[in-house]
Structures are given as C-alpha cells and as structure tokens.
C-alpha cells in the first residue's frame, strides 16, 4: 500500500450530536401538538415540593380539565399514590438506578397505561429529584418548570446553571416558611436572573395556597394559547 493511501485526512462533519433522546422528544412534541395536550414537566432537587405542588395543581384543575400525571423515582410508588389523591390518572415510572426521566420512559408509560393524549388537556411529568441530569433530557414538554424551595439556599441557581438556563420558568416554593428559615428573596431572585436573565418566576406555597391562583391562571392561559395556535385558520 502506498504512503498516500495511509496518510490521514480530515473529514469535516460539523454536526451537533443529536441524542436518540432528542429525536424521540421531537416526535413526542409533535404528537402532543397534534393531540392538543399541554405538557408540563417539573424538575428540582429532592424535597423541593414537586409532588405536593403537583397534587394540589391536579386537584384544582380536575373539576374543569382532563388531567393526568407521570412521576419518576428511583424506587417506591409513594409519589404516584400521593398524586392519585387528586383523583387524576397517575402512573409511577420506577427508574431503578437512572437519575432522570427520558423521552422513551415517558412514551412507554402513557402507552402502557393506554392513555389517549387527544382526550387530555394537561399531562404533567414530575421528574426524578435531581438538578443535574434532567437538564440534558428533553421530554417534549411545552413548559419546563424548575422549582427552588425557600429552604434550599439562595445560590442554588448559581450552582446549577444548566438546569435553570434550560427551564422555561421557575417556581419558588414553600414561601409560607420563608421567614422562619431566613430566606433572602432578593438574593435568590438575583441568582436566577444571573444564570437566566428574564426567566419568569412565580412564588407560592402549596401549604398556605399563596400564589396558587397565579399558577393556575398561567397554566390555563398557556394551555388555551397552545390550543388556539393549532386551530386551522378560517378563510372568508
């Protein structure tokens, strides 16, 4: 073999590695759009109040809307049981050792459950409690919400910039005990603004109900907006 044949050469590729998950997430996003279901995912560290907030959200929506929820945990069905107190259809995704939900797990879960997406107004997905890995896994959702509780420390966003940067909004939870734990609201909001300028922030307490009405209004108007965008335009 001549030297020329074994001389290394460079082949330009210039392509973003599109993970298998991202391809599936795109498909799911399209399916959700066609079905007219508004999909919300919740991410946070363990203990920020995702399950409590979701349970109360489901309770408030269920009288007017068709809602369902998926929740991921490494072990136990405890969260699903708690969410089911709302009366909504709920499924637990037990991940074993996997620290985040992936699009495939979500799809498998609602498929096995036999849920018809077209019959749903809202699908909520509660991710595994983890501020790191979920940032890398698109689930096809319309709204990704990152939760930060008043007990967690005001610099959490600075420590986990990627998850805050890839979220669509933030919710500060447990505001009812903010004073008791010495929560510095201005610093927390500044941290969020630092890693993601302009990220909308809601502050609420599931326990006291403070701020829950604004959360409901936001969900309902976002859901309606998505629906109206999918309507075929009428021509005269």
């Amino acid at each position, binding site marked *: 073999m001549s030297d020329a044949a074994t*001389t290394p050469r460079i082949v330009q*590729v210039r392509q973003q590695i599109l993970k298998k998950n991202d391809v599936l997430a795109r498909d799911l996003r399209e399916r959700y759009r066609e079905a007219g279901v508004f999909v919300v995912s919740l991410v946070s560290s363990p203990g920020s109040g995702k399950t409590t907030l979701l349970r109360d959200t489901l309770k408030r929506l269920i009288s007017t809307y068709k809602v369902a929820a998926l929740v991921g945990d490494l072990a136990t069905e405890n969260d699903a049981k708690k969410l089911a107190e709302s009366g909504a259809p709920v499924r637990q995704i037990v991940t074993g050792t996997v620290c985040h939900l992936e699009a495939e797990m979500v799809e498998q879960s609602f498929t096995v459950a036999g849920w018809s997406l077209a019959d749903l107004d809202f699908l909520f997905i509660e991710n595994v409690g983890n501020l790191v890995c979920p940032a890398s896994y698109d689930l096809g959702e319309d709204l990704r919400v990152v939760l930060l509780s008043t007990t967690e420390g005001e610099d959490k966003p600075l420590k986990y910039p990627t998850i805050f940067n890839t979220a669509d909004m933030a919710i500060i939870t447990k505001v009812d005990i903010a004073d008791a734990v010495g929560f510095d609201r201005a610093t927390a909001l500044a941290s969020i603004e630092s890693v993601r300028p302009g990220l909308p922030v809601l502050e609420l307490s599931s326990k006291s109900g403070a701020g829950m009405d604004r959360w409901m209004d936001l969900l309902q108007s976002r859901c309606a907006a998505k629906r109206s965008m999918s309507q075929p335009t009428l021509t005269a």
Partner: protein
Amino acid sequence: MHELSVAQDMVALIEAQLLAQGDHRVKVTGVHLRIGPLAGVVPQALRFAYDASVAGTNLAGSTLKIEEVAPTVYCGACDREQFLASISRLRCPVCDAATPEIVHGRELEVVSVEVVDV
C-alpha cells in the same frame, strides 16, 4: 453518567456521516469535538466513556480531541457578541446589560474526524 450514551450516539453519527459521504472504507484515527458548558456533558466523563464506546467499531483506537467552547452571548446594548467568563452570570462584560441570548455554549458538535483509507 449519561456520557456513555452520548458517546454511543456520537459513534453512530460519525459512522452514518462517513457512509453518506461514501467514506465507509476508512478507519477513524481521530475525532474532534466541540463541547460548550451548557451542553450538559462533562468533557472528562465523555473521555472516560469514549474508549468503551468505540471498542469494536471502526473508531477503535482513535484519539479524542475535545475543544471546550467559550460561552458567548449577544449584547443588544453593545450590538456585538461578547465572551463570557462563566455561564453563571449572563451579563455583558463590557456594559453589564443582561444577555440571555447565548450564541455559543450549547455545542455538542462533531467538528471533524481524521481517517485513513483501508
């Protein structure tokens, strides 16, 4: 943690690209990646996963070169792109305006591969 599956997806992308270019009778001797701090991938972890992922493929034995992308934002006030020291503070280093628009930093890109014909 999930860098193993990212490495596997990278191998699949390279093999598909070489096939599409009619270059499948080559051995890959090097891979050049660009990774930004917001890609959600830790370069060191990807290095760990790399050897396991390329074993048994025509990338086996290849060298991985990772170029870490400096985060760059667009500043509307300055009307230009600015490098950032860190992704923890998305503000213009020159005029301190908030700069949410990220121009570079999310890359997880295969720039090129080095091949030898076989």
